[in-house]
């Protein structure tokens, strides 16, 4: 078979320019397209590092490359996903180019379902796969995956890799969880989800390889789905991410005032300490001592909408509140629907997020007669309750969707709050596109805010923190 012959399936797989350098550059290009910042200096480091590890050892090669180009755990995740895909594709493209196929002479004659002239015993295959999964033996799993595919006949599948993987798995009777007892009645150790996924990955890879070999074309490479690269989510992890963003916010808010005031302006000489220091220099006050500058303590008021229109976002909002309470001591938080209710105590006395959320919903004390938010009333109540304490040093953050349900928005009261407080920010759980549609009166409030942001993921929260700190908004 001539490699130059046009494939009946269309354009032949193009392995691109040859050589390791070109491949690595291509790989880094792909990393960049997925948002990993790989600079030229990183590339140079990668090449320098690869000179010191044997390129024949995949583990070392991968680690050396990862240590030089993937500089955070998130980057590392993307790296892992792309590394497998990219070099797998590169190798396959190269194989197609040179007409290398896996079906050697011996296998070509045999029917699918036979390997080495011996029929594959389904029961035995299942047992061996199970053992390999339990032992976590990658090499064995790979071999067994090929054996399993051979048993079902190469190229006889539906042509859709995902469907075939599941078909083979089902036929083999492989399931996660408790295993049926063996033939002699002995109990089998359970297989967990991760082990099964591991085997499925090998199946998928071998099926893909087979497909590429038959069609002699590479399937188009797709950008990583958002789903693949997202961290495995659980509520506690989201909480951790929120906490991280908030602790950054704390630093930013704490240093913000000082930068504006300048460093040397307004410093007070500490006479006592200056005199003491002058003893070292024979009583000559050579060095002035200043009173230590107290970082200005941010005073924060957070108003959080917990009505039904923001139900989906309220867990996120509550976790933001929870994190804020972990970071700031001078923080007062309020929840509101129709009326306002202070929940500072709940957060201060209870650290467990689940309990906090439960207590707020049960005894938050939000006078919830109709269940509809009344922003106007909330501003009025907030102003009468807190107005004396608001001063230019305080920051007010509102978490809500600005949907008034047709009630009076009292924007002029909101303006008063804005006037008294140093800074006023609004975080809206709706996309900007929906603002001011329907009963949303965001525009009325927005002009009194120092900033209004859409915010329903930790990414948005980080963006907000960056803007507050005077930085540039993170690219979406």
């Amino acid at each position, binding site marked *: 078979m001539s490699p130059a012959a046009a494939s009946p399936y269309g354009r032949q797989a193009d392995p691109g320019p040859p050589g390791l350098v070109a491949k690595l550059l291509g790989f880094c290009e792909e990393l960049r397209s997925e948002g990993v*910042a790989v*600079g030229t*200096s*990183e590339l140079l*480091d990668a090449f*320098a*590092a690869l000179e*010191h*590890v044997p390129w024949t050892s995949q*583990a*070392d090669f991968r*680690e*050396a490359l*990862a*240590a*030089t180009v*993937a*500089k*955070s*755990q998130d980057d*590392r995740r993307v790296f892992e996903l792309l590394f497998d895909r990219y070099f797998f594709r590169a190798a396959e493209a190269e194989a197609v180019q040179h007409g290398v196929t896996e079906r050697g002479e011996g296998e070509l004659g045999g029917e699918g379902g036979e390997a080495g002239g011996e029929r594959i015993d389904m029961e035995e295959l299942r047992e061996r796969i199970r053992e390999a999964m339990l032992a976590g033996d990658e090499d064995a799993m790979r071999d067994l995956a090929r054996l399993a595919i051979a048993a079902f006949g190469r190229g006889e599948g539906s042509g859709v890799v995902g469907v075939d993987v599941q078909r083979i798995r089902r036929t083999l009777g492989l399931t996660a969880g408790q295993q049926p007892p063996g033939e002699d009645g002995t109990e089998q150790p359970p297989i967990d989800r991760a082990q099964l996924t591991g085997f499925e990955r090998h199946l998928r890879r071998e099926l893909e390889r087979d497909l590429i070999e038959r069609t002699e074309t590479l399937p188009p490479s797709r950008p990583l789905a958002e789903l693949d690269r997202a961290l495995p989510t659980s509520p*506690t992890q989201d909480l951790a991410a929120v906490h*991280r963003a908030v*602790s*950054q916010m704390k*630093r930013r808010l704490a240093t913000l005032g000082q930068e504006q005031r300048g460093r040397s302006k307004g410093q007070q000489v500490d006479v006592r300490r200056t005199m003491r220091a002058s003893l*070292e*220099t024979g009583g000559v006050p050579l060095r002035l001592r200043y009173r230590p500058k107290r970082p200005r303590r941010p005073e924060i008021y957070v108003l959080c909408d917990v009505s039904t229109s923001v139900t989906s976002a309220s867990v996120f909002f509550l976790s933001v509140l929870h994190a804020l309470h972990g970071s700031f001591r001078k923080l007062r938080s309020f929840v509101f629907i129709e009326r306002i209710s202070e929940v500072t105590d709940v957060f201060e006395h209870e*650290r*467990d997020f689940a309990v906090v959320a439960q207590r707020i919903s049960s005894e938050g004390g939000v006078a919830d007669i109709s269940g509809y938010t009344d922003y106007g009333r909330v501003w009025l109540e907030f102003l009468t309750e807190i107005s004396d304490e608001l001063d230019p040093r305080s920051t007010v953050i509102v978490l809500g969707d600005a949907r008034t349900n047709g009630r009076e928005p009292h924007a002029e009261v909101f303006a008063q709050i804005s006037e008294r407080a140093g800074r006023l920010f609004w975080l809206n759980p709706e996309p900007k596109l929906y603002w001011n549609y329907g009963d949303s009166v965001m525009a009325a409030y927005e002009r009194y805010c120092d900033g209004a942001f859409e915010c329903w993921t930790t990414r948005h929260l980080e963006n907000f923190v960056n803007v507050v700190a005077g930085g540039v908004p993170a690219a979406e």
Partner: protein
Amino acid sequence: MVDGSVAEVKEALAKVGYLADEPAALVSFLAQRLDKPILVEGPAGVGKTELAKALSRASGRELVRLQCYEGLDEAKAMYEWNYRKQLLRIQAGGESGWSDVQEDIFSTEFLLTRPLMQAISSPEPVVLLIDEIDKTDQEFEAMLLELLSDFQITIPELGQVSATTMPIVVLTSNDSRELTEALKRRCLYLWLDYPGLEREMEIVRLHAPDLPETLARRLVEVIEMVRALDLKKPPSIAESIDWARTLLLMGAEDIDRRTFVQSMSIIVKHRTDIDLVAERVGMKLPEAPSPAG
């Protein structure tokens, strides 16, 4: 020396009591070959600082440690002029001219070296550990850049002080804030995580060799269960080792419910965590055998 090959680095580290996994050994090896700093990130208590100490022991280099904290500045990290000594010099040399004095008092003799300066001016190569870099301000990070990429420090009065010997630099971070791109770009990146069951068992048995194997296995299994809970402070590797030693002292033969409750405070150190662990893990353990007689 510990820069022969990856396997040799691993072995040398194991010899001084640090069982490195493949990535850790490889990155340590590369750091020495490429003269690049290592940035180690990971949860608290997985042996980030210990890696630097082990590197120092394995290579026979002195360890210079800079513990970072909020508000750490140049004077405490790099150098400071020895102001009193300068003053004495001025008073003592009454006759010499101004230019002589000026030249004299801004010489290395009057410089107080702080860890970073010490690391690069040391005649013997050292291991420099910059611990918990995420605790400092971003300004401090910027200050480190010159040191990390060129191994030199610029003192306005003296000029550049370049490293006479190449230190191995290890920076650790608990990931409490995102470090700047500029810093990351200059480093090799290593993520350390809690070790797997087998490796943790090796570590525990290395540090508590008298512990029977069955008990050690039980111990790491329990530790793993505890880490799987959502705790304020999950037990670190050091705490597993402490617990292993405690069990030895107690003469425990198995980790049953009573032993666990008695010694739990070694691995869990928060009031709320203790309740949670006692409830979730303690209950799963076998009942203590009733004392005979």
